[in-house]
């Protein structure tokens, strides 16, 4: 029985693959969301606990002045030296000096790693974008418990 050799290799019909992939690409392109929307989370204190019950955590109050100056006031942060308890980041070309703020925050984080709570105190004329920029810098430094002080 020496029959002819059978060819064991076969060829895949690639056309259905291409059809499937084309349909997938069309569907995904049509349903794609190109804008990546995220959020900056802010917790507002609504009261409920008395002052004695509340654990005193290191907190920084940040005042956003209308001329672009930033003033940071540290509370319950014993590790931060007395001369650094109040810091001012001067404006740069009439805007908030965000790079200067980041540098200071890096130094503060080394001194007081437990500092996570930030209360932002904007003025009436502070723009929403500037407020978000400042919050973003604090988040970058690992201070994620953000709050906004109402006017």
């Amino acid at each position, binding site marked *: 029985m020496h029959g002819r050799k059978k*060819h064991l290799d076969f060829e895949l019909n690639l056309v259905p*693959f291409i059809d499937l992939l084309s349909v997938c*690409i069309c569907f995904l392109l049509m349903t794609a969301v190109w804008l990546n929307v*995220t*959020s900056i989370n802010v*917790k507002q204190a609504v009261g409920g606990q008395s002052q004695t019950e509340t654990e005193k955590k290191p907190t920084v109050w940040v005042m956003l002045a209308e001329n672009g100056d930033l003033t940071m006031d540290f509370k319950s942060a014993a590790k931060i030296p007395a001369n650094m308890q109040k810091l001012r980041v001067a404006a740069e070309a009439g805007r908030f000096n965000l790079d200067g703020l980041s540098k200071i925050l890096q130094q503060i984080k080394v001194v007081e790693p437990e500092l996570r709570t930030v209360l932002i105190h904007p003025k009436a*004329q502070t723009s*929403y*974008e500037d407020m978000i920029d400042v919050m*973003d810098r604090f988040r970058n430094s690992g201070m994620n418990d953000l709050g906004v002080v109402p006017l």
Partner: protein
Amino acid sequence: MVQSILQVTAMESELAAVSVLGPRHNRHKRVLAADLLLTALIDAFSILVIFLLMSFSSTGDILYINKNFEMPKAAYGEMLDRNPVVKIDENQIFLEDKMIDGGGDGLFRALLAMKQKAAADRPTEESPTIITVQADRRIKYQVLNQIVVACAQAGFSDIRFAVLSK
């Protein structure tokens, strides 16, 4: 002898005929049908599908952004979930795309009504405390303040400012 489709096309195609492997005596049998190398096409399609699948968002559009509406940008935002949306567009306040009259007070009443409705519809669940705020990057804090205050008074203690990822 049975020849595979690839072999046949390689022997008869225009491309194969001019190559060094192509038998010259077959020149008179040339077929002018073009051969497509489908493997490269499938590779490219697969890469496209993988890329699109990676960037696919199953949650869909959470926020509707108008043409002239510019949201602020932030690099360290968190993922946005589906929550009630308060939007400020041209100094008008919208709650879930419904215009609210009466500024902050109107919003406070609308938020309370929404909370009561949620409590009546789902009595076993906790009332919502998270709200998403969508505002133009150019607005001043005095406009935003009324929303912050209304949300806090209505019991929405977690405010999520929607931003575009940098």
